[in-house]
Structures are given as structure tokens and as C-alpha cells.
């Protein structure tokens, strides 16, 4: 490989979660030039990142401003044309699109590429997902499947790039300016030798935020019991939240909200002993800074998908059947925000500050997990308290299955390439006989369509009837997944495989559909 393009138009946290992939790409393809495409708004983190040779930034805010009025269309068009022209200056051996937007899919379609992992767009403008790991990613983002996913986004990113996770955390490097700014801030704040506990109050969405009053009480409890000093972290937009918390605190913390730039924030985190955070970019900075985090998993946040990518973190999840919730429709009654008690969080903090193997009992049933890297290099979360053993067992089995099936499957989606590799799976009494039956029926009906498609003239009536039969199998699977959500990962994966079939003739379409059912049938048997 000579030219690799990494497209990530996400926020700070998304960019930080890309760092293991960048590291592994450089190690695997040392002579390749790696180009990173990001958003201008989040450029401040780039000086802290390594593993790419050049970077193009999309100024989405400027384009949005231009497009606010019709007369701004020509300027926006020219700016976008210039941007696309710069990025598309040469042929890419591999484009890894880590952005979920349709915009990114259209951008990829305008590039000269050999292989694509992630979203792209076909000639008609239809969005397509390319590469098995990207199919997996988008299959679990769509519905109930997400709660069964146990593979972290950073590990999925690595696999989308065709490289294996290496069991190392996300990484950023401290800048000289960031370090000086943190030291001078802490000096001005009169920090003693006490360990600092960072509190990140905000998040991208209020539904993901633990109440400011809870943070205030936690801060007081931590400072009252001695031994630590708390420090509030956050952007200027989070000042009102900080003010609310400050007004409720008996013991004032250091207030760094709105007072740090990105390099400064990272350097400040490096000087903390611990961070307590909602699902935020700050949490990912902490993981890269090598400090442990107590993650508050609220709203749609999933610790397994986007938890801090390093070993030794703790995550608390409310004991609610709906947690984590779906992205849409947005929850109108986010009771999870108040479902994690201050005492639970304080207990988790103590566990990280003082060490030990378990936190004290929690009567509220809050789930507690600890992160570590597994022997295969993937990040794992071990349940420490109140975990659901059956659900954990099934989710882990899924994770092992996906790793076996998807690893080494290349960048093209063809059913025949999905092979369940290695051993470790024994087919015993089928656990999900109904899905097994349906996938078998799917195989049979698509095999009949393939045979019919090879006849001349085409037996149209018969093909029509077979098509309806196949639709009925598909519908049966969706109903089954509705009744038994634990099957939704398999059904969703088969669905997305079928949605992304690019063949145009009937024989090939039927063959690709057959592949999806065959894979689903095999995986169901192994589950």
C-alpha cells in the first residue's frame, strides 16, 4: 500500500479513538503515506496526534454559514470543490471512512480508490457500506443489536483498516505549550500535593449528563474525606453547568471550565489522578493521558462501544432495562440520569484511588465494569458488580463469533469469504431453532432463485413467487428478532448484508442473498 486515506469528520473523541488504527497502519504499512481528513472545528487535537503524514480539514462551519442564504451557494460550492480537489489529488489504495454521514459517502464516491472500508455511494447516489467490519458496525448502530456489542469502536476501526488491535490504549503526545499552560494554571490555582480528581460535568447531549447537583455532592464527599482535590473541567459552553454545581458545593474545587485550550486540557489531565466523566471527549483525552476514568454511562452512551480505550477504567451503568437507550427516538423521560447514586460513584473513585479488587456493595443495583485488554488485543469490560451473567455470556459469545467470522475477510463483501475460522465453537443442541429454520429456508429459496435465473427463457411467474417466499422469510426473521431481541445482531447483520448487495443481475443478487442466509445459518448454529 502506498496511499491510505482515513476519513474521520467526527469530534475530538472520535479522532482520539482513531489513534490505535493510525498506530497500527504505520506499523503494518511503514512506507505508505497516510492522509487524515478531519473537521476544521476539531483541528486543535491534531498536533497531539501522530501516525499520519498529511491532513486535510473540512471547514463545515464556514460552509454552513455560506449556505444559510441562497446567494452563498456559489461560494460554498467553490469551497467544497476546492476541498474535494485537494483530497482527491491522487489514487488511494485504501480509503477508510470512519464517518457515518451520507456526506462522507458522497465524498468517498468522488475519490479514485482501489478499496474502501466504510460508507461510500454508488452511481445512483445510494449509500453503500463496504467491508465486513463496517457492515458489522452499521448493523449494530441501527437498533437493539447495540446492547449486545462488546467490541470497542477503536478495535472496530482497526479492523476496518485491515489491521489487528495491539492491546494498547489510545495515544496523544503532550505539547510543550500544553504542559506549560497546565503547570502555570495549577500554580495559579495554588494546587498542593494532593491528588487531583477531574470532574467533567457536561456532554454533547443533556440526556448523557449526570446532574450537576450530583457532581457537586460527589466533589464535597471526595474533598471532605480528605486526600484529594477536585477540579472541574470543560469547555466554555459548559460554564452554566459548572456555575450550577459550584453554587451547590460546600468545598470549592479548582475551576478550570472554559480556561483551557485542547493541549492544555490534555496536559492538565496528565496531572490528575482520576477523572469522573459522562461519555465525553474529555474521557478519551484521559484515556490517552494514561489516567483512569470513572465513566457514567447514561442515555444512549454504551461503555462497550465508546468507553475509554485503556485498561483500568471503571464504568457505571444504571440498572435499567432500557439502558443504553436507542439514539432515536430520543427518550422523553431520562430517568437514567438520576439512577446512579453519588455513593456508587464515590465508591468507584475510592477503588481507583486506593486500589483493590472490588468496590463496596451497591444496594441500588448499579452495574460496575472494569476495562482491560484481552489476550487477543481487544479491549474488554469485566463485570465487577450486578452484571447480568446470562446476557454477558451471550454478548461475549457474539464477540468471539464476530471476531472469528470477520477477521481476515478482506475489504470486499462476499459471503463466500466469510469463513468461521479456528476452533472453539461446538455445535450442540441448537439454541435458536426458529432462526436456524428460517435461515435454512432462506438458503433454499435463494438457491431455487439462482437455479431459475439460469433458465432460458426466465420463468418469471415462478421467480415472482420465489421472491415473495424470500420476502416472507425476511419478514419472519424481523418478527423473530422483535420477539427475541438477543437474535437481533444476527438478523440485523444479514439485513445489512442484503441491503448492500451491489450485483445487478438476478443470478448474482440471489447468490449474494444466499450467502447472507448461509452465513446467518452457520452463525446461528454456533451461537
Amino acid at each position: 500500500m502506498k496511499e491510505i486515506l482515513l476519513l474521520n469528520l467526527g469530534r475530538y473523541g472520535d479522532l482520539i479513538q482513531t489513534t490505535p488504527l493510525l498506530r497500527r497502519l504505520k506499523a503494518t504499512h511503514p512506507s505508505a503515506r497516510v492522509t487524515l481528513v478531519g473537521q476544521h472545528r476539531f483541528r486543535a487535537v491534531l498536533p497531539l496526534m501522530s501516525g499520519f503524514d498529511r491532513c486535510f480539514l473540512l471547514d463545515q462551519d464556514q460552509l454552513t454559514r455560506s449556505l444559510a442564504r441562497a446567494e452563498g451557494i456559489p461560494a460554498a460550492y467553490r469551497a467544497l470543490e476546492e476541498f474535494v480537489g485537494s483530497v482527491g489529488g491522487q489514487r488511494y489504495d485504501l480509503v477508510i471512512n470512519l464517518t457515518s454521514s451520507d456526506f462522507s459517502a458522497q465524498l468517498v464516491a468522488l475519490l479514485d480508490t482501489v478499496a474502501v472500508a466504510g460508507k461510500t455511494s454508488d452511481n445512483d447516489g445510494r449509500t453503500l457500506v463496504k467491508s465486513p467490519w463496517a457492515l458489522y458496525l452499521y448493523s449494530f448502530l441501527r437498533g437493539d443489536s447495540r446492547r449486545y456489542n462488546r467490541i470497542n469502536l477503536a478495535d472496530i476501526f482497526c479492523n476496518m483498516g485491515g489491521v489487528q488491535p495491539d492491546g494498547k490504549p489510545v495515544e496523544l503526545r503532550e505539547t510543550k505549550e500544553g504542559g506549560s499552560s497546565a503547570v502555570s494554571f495549577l500554580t495559579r490555582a495554588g494546587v498542593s500535593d494532593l491528588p487531583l480528581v477531574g470532574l467533567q460535568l457536561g456532554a454533547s447531549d443533556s440526556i448523557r449528563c449526570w446532574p450537576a447537583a450530583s457532581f457537586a455532592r460527589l466533589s464535597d464527599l471526595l474533598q471532605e474525606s480528605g486526600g484529594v482535590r477536585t477540579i472541574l473541567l470543560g469547555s466554555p459552553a459548559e460554564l452554566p453547568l459548572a456555575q450550577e454545581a459550584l453554587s451547590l458545593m460546600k468545598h470549592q474545587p479548582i475551576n478550570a471550565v472554559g480556561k483551557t485550550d485542547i493541549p492544555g486540557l490534555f496536559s492538565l489531565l496528565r496531572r490528575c489522578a482520576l477523572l469522573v466523566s459522562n461519555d465525553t471527549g474529555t474521557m478519551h483525552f484521559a484515556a490517552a493521558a494514561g489516567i483512569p476514568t470513572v465513566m457514567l454511562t447514561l442515555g444512549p452512551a454504551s461503555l462497550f462501544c465508546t468507553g475509554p480505550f485503556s485498561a483500568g477504567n471503571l464504568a457505571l451503568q444504571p440498572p435499567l432495562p432500557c439502558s443504553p437507550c436507542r439514539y432515536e427516538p430520543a427518550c422523553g423521560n431520562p430517568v437514567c440520569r438520576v439512577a446512579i447514586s453519588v455513593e456508587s460513584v464515590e465508591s468507584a473513585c475510592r477503588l481507583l484511588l486506593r486500589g483493590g479488587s472490588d468496590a463496596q456493595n451497591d444496594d441500588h443495583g448499579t452495574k460496575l465494569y472494569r476495562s482491560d485488554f484481552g489476550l487477543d488485543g481487544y479491549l474488554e469490560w469485566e463485570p465487577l458488580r450486578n452484571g447480568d451473567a446470562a446476557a454477558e455470556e451471550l454478548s461475549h459469545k457474539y464477540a468471539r463469533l464476530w471476531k472469528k467470522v470477520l477477521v481476515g475477510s478482506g475489504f470486499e463483501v462476499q459471503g463466500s469469504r466469510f469463513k468461521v475460522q479456528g476452533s472453539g465453537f461446538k455445535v450442540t443442541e441448537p439454541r435458536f431453532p426458529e432462526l436456524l429454520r428460517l435461515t435454512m429456508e432462506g438458503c433454499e429459496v435463494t438457491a431455487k432463485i439462482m437455479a431459475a435465473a439460469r433458465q432460458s427463457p426466465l420463468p418469471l411467474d415462478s421467480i415472482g413467487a420465489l421472491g415473495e417466499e424470500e420476502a416472507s422469510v425476511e419478514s419472519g426473521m424481523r418478527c423473530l428478532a422483535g420477539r427475541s431481541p438477543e437474535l437481533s445482531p444476527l438478523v440485523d447483520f444479514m439485513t445489512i448484508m442484503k441491503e448492500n448487495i451491489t450485483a445487478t443481475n438476478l443470478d448474482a443478487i440471489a447468490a449474494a442473498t444466499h450467502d447472507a442466509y448461509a452465513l446467518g445459518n452457520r452463525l446461528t448454529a454456533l451461537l
Partner: protein
Amino acid sequence: MNLTALKRIDPILAETTRRIAPVREDLTLEQARNGRAVVKKGGILLHSTYDPRKEAAHWVTSGVPGAPRSLCVLGCALGYHLKELADKGFRGAFIEPDLVLFRLALEHQDFTSVLERFRPLVGIPLERLRRAHREPLAGETIPHPASLRANPSYFQPVADYARGVKVARQGELKILLINPLYGGSLPAARHSAAALKKLGHRVEVFTSQAFAQGLELASEFTVSAHRKSFTGGLVSLLGQGIELKAMEFQPDLILALAQAPLHHPTLSRLEQMEIPTAFWFVEDYRALPYWRDLAAGYGYFFGIQRGDFPAQLKQSGVKNYGYLPTAAAPDIHLPVKLTKEDQDEYGSPLSFVGAGYHNRERFFRGLTDYSLKIWGNEWPLTQPLAPFIQRDAARVDTSSCVKIFNASAINLNLHSSTYHEGIDPEGDFVNPRTFEIAACSALQLVDKRSLIPELFGDDELESFESIEELRGKIDWYLTDPGAGRSMAARGRARVLAEHTYQARMEELLALMICAYPTITQRLESREKSLSTLREELELLPGMEPLLHRIPAGGEITLELLCKTIPKEAGTLSRGERMILMLQQIRMAGRDEP
């Protein structure tokens, strides 16, 4: 002589002026060098102290160029400029809030030629001026510079409002109107949309009421928190829909009617999109206090009440409040010729149309000896009113209402109350039915409301304060139908002149335009850029085929360009992909903080 001339034109003004003393502390009369009288107001000279007539002649030549025409002059002073304009053949109206100054002018100037050609609008408060004298303000307005300097707090808003009215009448504004989710304000929303369209604006309506039935599902939840959560979710969904609609339509302003599903997060995002928002709260603020949670989110709040409502709104963070009573739609509420069948069905000596509120149910017990028909829903079918209630208290549609108003000798109008035993003695706002009955040229007897006198004259509407007074008036008008017909005709004339939805929308828009200069800027820039935008776009690679699919001379927006791209119909060109990408950028912009 002047007063005699004035009396012929406006006897009430003549009488008021005659009674007023031509003296006030801040008004000083002086003599110019040529011997003519000049006046100072608050220390500001309103005329040249050399030769005020020459100054006026110079002002007319340089400040009012062109052929004689109709004008509305802001400021009377001692009238030198008005006299000069009249002598040159101009006509129209002049506006002067200061009666004493006007009296001085009449004393020191021969005003006969002025009064022959210019209608005096003197001593009229701003709000009354914009409601009762729309035509002069909508025409060409010229401020008398010295008057403007001496009394900017009156003349500047008048000048601004006059500019606003002109833009409002010019049409072509893009207005997104948010219908209520449910409730009695839906007809007002429909009439407002129709009125805005008549004014030539491009109106898109967000028909929230389509979800009314869905909202009823809330009653199926037994836990109140669940009901609240469900309702909140639905309102949030509709808010999202409104945002999307705003992004697609890119309105110059958004008008929401009472009970529209707009909540704070949506309002603040609309504010971020720099779209001015207006709310017309056509409900009683005391009975429905939900406005407290929303009012501050709107750019301009319009209500049907005065009293301490504006102060309470200010306390809630509202920056702009406008009193805007409801109105009638004269193409719907009008005199109609009824068939004999209709007359038999809908007609009666005495009728009432409206829901069965507590106070009405109590009050009408005192009228059971009349031939009375009660129309409307929510009436208890019990004695003693049951025999009078029509159609088993079914809801009455608009066209039937109009027939009832036309067919009845006397239409009763009693404003609703949930707790009074009859008339609300402190009732202020005027309900839509008052205007609607009047617009039908039908006689109505309405309970006394404190805000009626400024909307209708004593000879245009008959009101009552007690059951005894009402009974007396019923008897009187039943025996003298001619008197009733004359009063009703005057009432209709007043509605047509001042109280139509079109007039209300014109006023609302003019006030919004004054408060938000961006509205005019957007309109002007749209007009100006229409041709240059097409030219510019044609120069971009790959854009020509898309532009060919948009009619020449028509508006060009990103949405229209996207719509020209056929769905799944062959290979997309680079230009088409670029346009789709820009559209995605714009849509994504709404989610960014």
C-alpha cells in the same frame, strides 16, 4: 375660519381643538425676522427664524421632488410646509400627536387650503393610528424634519411602522405558519394563513393538528409522569419537524398560533438559525397560563389583552409585546341570502353560538321565556336549557355559524368563564365572535368588555352589563328591527375597515419588520440576487444541467437544486453529488452546537 373648515371635515376634532387652550410650558411662540410666527417645542425650533415660508418652499422643492401626489406628512408644526404642499397641489393626510401645537397652528396660519387637501390625523395614539389609519401610513410618508427632531418618540416609531407596512403590503415574504396542535385557535391560524396569502406572501403551513388524535393517546396512560413524557415526546418530535421545515423552506419569519407545538429547545435553535419568531396568543392569559413557559423564547409576543399582561410578560423575559385583538374573515363571515329552509332551521328571534361554559349555562336561565336557540357543544342537556339547545349540543361548523348569525334577529354574545355566575365584570379581551357577527352585518348584544370601546363605537355595537339590561335591549330591538339593522351595518363597516385578519396580519408583519431589520434585508437580497445567483451558478462546473431544470426567473435554493436530481435514475454527475453534499452539510449544521 379654520375651526369652521375643520368642523366640516372632522367635527369631533374641531370641538376638541376648540376646547383646548393654546398654551403649554414647552411650547414657545416667537417671531421670525420677516414677522411670521414660529414655534419652539422643548427648545427645538420647528421653523426657520428668518423666513419660515421660504424654508417650507425650499423643503418642498428639495425634500419632496416630483409631481403633486398623495402624501402622509409626519408633523404639523405651524403648518408652513403643509400650506406649501397644498399650494403645490399635493394632498393626503398629516399626522400630529400634539393637540396644543395644532391649535396654535390654527391660530397663526390660514389652514383652509391645508384642510381642503390634507386630512388631519391629530392627537391619535400610535396604536390607534396604525389600526384605524392604515391607508395613509401604507402610502408615501414624509417626515417634517423639525417635527421629527422635536418629538422623536412618536414620529420615529410612526415612520418605522409606515416603512414596515409598505414591506408587509409588498408581499413576497416567506412565512412559516405553525398551526396549533388542537384547540380553538385553529380557525384563527387558518384565517391568518389566508390573509397572509392575500397580502401576497409565500406561506407554508405546518399542520400540527394532524397529530391531535395522537395526542389523545396520552389519556390512556394512567401515571401522570407517563402522560407528560408521552406528550413531551410528541411535542419534541413536532418541534423537530418544524425545524426541518424551517431548514427546507428558509422562511423570513415564523408565526405560531396559540397551542402550537413549539418548545424552548426548538425556539432557541430557530433563533440560532436567525429566523425571527412571532407568537399570537389568542387566548385568555389568566385562564391558560402555559404562556409563562414559552413566552421568552419568542422574538415577538402578540396577545389579545392589555392590563398587567405586558408587565407580566416583561417579567418573564419577553422583549417585544404587541396588543393584537382577534378579527373576522370577511370572505367567510359575511351577509348571506338564506333559503327558506335555512331560515327556518337556523333562524330565531334570539340565538347564541358557543360552547356551554358555566357562566353561560347560569346566565341563559334568565332568558328561557324568549324564543331562544342555543348552538354549540359541551352543553348539558338538562333542564331548564335542554329545550333550547340545538342538535343535541353538537359542534357547529363555520358555515352554519354564519347562517345562524344571518338568520337570527338578535345574536347573543357572552364571553366564556368557568367560574362566574354570568358576566365577568372584569372581562377585558374581545372574542372572535364579536367580530364575526358584526362582519355578517348581524345584530349582536355582547357583554361589556373593557377593550370593546376602542374597537367599536357606541353606535356600532350594543353591549349589556346585566341580565336586566340585556332583557330590556332584547325587547327594544325585537320591536324596532330597523334600529338593529342600522347598528349592525355600522358594525360591519367598522370590521371591514379595521378588524379583518388581513389588517391584523399587516399590523403584525409591520411590527415584526420594524423589530427585525433582517426580514427586509433578506427580502431585498433575495430579489437582488435572483438574477446574479443564476449567472454565478451557471459558471460553476457541472451546474448548468441542474439549472436548466429550474424555471427561468424563479427562485433558486439548495432544496430546489436537490429536487432536480432524479432519484436512483442513472449515474450522478459530479455537480449533482456536490449539491447533495452541500445539502447534507446544511442539514447537519442544525445538529451542531
